[in-house]
Structures are given as structure tokens and as C-alpha cells.
């Protein structure tokens, strides 16, 4: 199984600023994903991070607000731009297993609080 790390694990930010979250996988993977989990809720997919091309965003999420980079097969970043208190959530990185490509593993999450 893929081992996924995220940085930072948590942060408290001011309204109007931006935060970039990093996600590192211990092996090359084809597909990486970013999710948002609001307090007490289930996971909502933000976008699929594509290596070498633009991310594919889900309905309700836009590139200007959540720019994503994926420079190689083991690393991705998610930026939360121009933050407001409504962006306070846990952000989780996920990757598909290289062998069992139907199975996804998750990073430990980044808890973001926007004041």
C-alpha cells in the first residue's frame, strides 16, 4: 500500500491569505486526489491531480480558488487561495494503489482554521 504524508498537519490562517498543502507519496502513482472534509461531514472530492497537465475539478470547485500542481508521480500541492472562514476544513490527499488501482489510500490530512 502507498504511504502518504502531508505538510503542514495543521495551520491557523488569516482571512484573505493563501496556504499551500504538500502531499508526498512513497512510490510512483498514477492518480492523486484532493478531498475536503468539513467538520462532522463526509469527504468531498475537490479535484484529480494529473501529472503533467491541469487538474480536473469537481462541480463547485475552481482552479482560481484551489490551484493544484503535480510536477511528478509522487508529489502534489493544493493551494487554498484568498481564504475565508468557510474554508476551515480538513484537506486530505489521496492516491490510487499502483497494483490494486481500484484502491485508494489517504494522507493524514491538514486541519485548516481560517480566522
Amino acid at each position: 500500500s502507498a504511504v502518504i504524508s502531508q505538510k503542514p498537519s495543521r495551520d491557523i490562517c488569516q482571512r484573505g491569505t493563501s496556504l499551500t498543502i504538500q502531499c508526498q507519496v512513497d512510490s510512483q502513482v498514477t492518480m492523486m486526489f484532493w478531498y475536503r472534509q468539513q467538520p462532522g461531514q463526509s469527504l468531498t472530492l475537490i479535484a484529480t491531480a494529473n501529472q503533467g497537465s491541469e487538474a480536473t475539478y469537481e462541480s463547485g470547485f475552481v482552479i482560481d480558488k484551489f490551484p493544484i500542481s503535480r510536477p511528478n508521480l509522487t508529489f502534489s500541492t493544493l493551494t487554498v487561495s484568498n481564504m475565508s472562514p468557510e474554508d476551515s476544513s480538513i484537506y486530505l490527499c489521496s492516491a490510487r494503489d499502483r497494483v490494486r488501482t481500484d484502491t485508494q489510500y489517504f494522507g493524514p490530512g491538514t486541519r485548516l482554521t481560517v480566522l
Partner: protein
Amino acid sequence: AQTVTQSQPEMSVQEAETVTLSCTYDTSENNYYLFWYKQPPSRQMILVIRQEAYKQQNATENRFSVNFQKAAKSFSLKISDSQLGDTAMYFCAFKNTGTASKLTFGTGTRLQVTL
């Protein structure tokens, strides 16, 4: 579109006892995958168990087993000999075959294991 329903928002079980968490889903596909993920207070999403729909045999992983009823579109998780460390949110998830398909999560069941 696929939907996943977890009808038990919260459950409680005593240590060493057995508990069953329910999950139903809706799909018109014949081949797909089902998963149970565990999210303890540390917020790390951990894959508990995975079931392939074309396999009739129920998946088991140590104290965790599933009761997969394909015709009824039911996928319940049984935890035997419950331990305090099993206290967590449990999410049921569905995925079609194919690399383009995405995970669909249920709303989760909060399980509390008590002494």
C-alpha cells in the same frame, strides 16, 4: 449516479463485543468495488476492508468481516472482539471499475467502544 447510504449516524458497543455497521448502495453496474474506511480522532483515513463485487466470498481482515449481499445492494461491516482502538468514524465507499471512476462515500457512522 451511485449513492451510498449509512443509516446509523452513531453506534456504541462494549469492549470485546461484536457490532455490525450497515451500508447500502445504489448502482446499475454489475462490477464494482466496495470499501470500509476507518477515521479515528487522529483523522487519518485507514482502509479497513475491500470487496470486489464479482467475488461472492465475503472479505475478512482479522477481526473485521463484511456481509456482502449483492442482490440487496448491502455491504455491512462486522467488528468482532471490539477494542477501544476501534473507536472511530467508519465510512462505507463505492467505486465503479475503470480508472475514470471515483470513490463515492457514505455519510459515516460514529462508533464508540466503551469499557
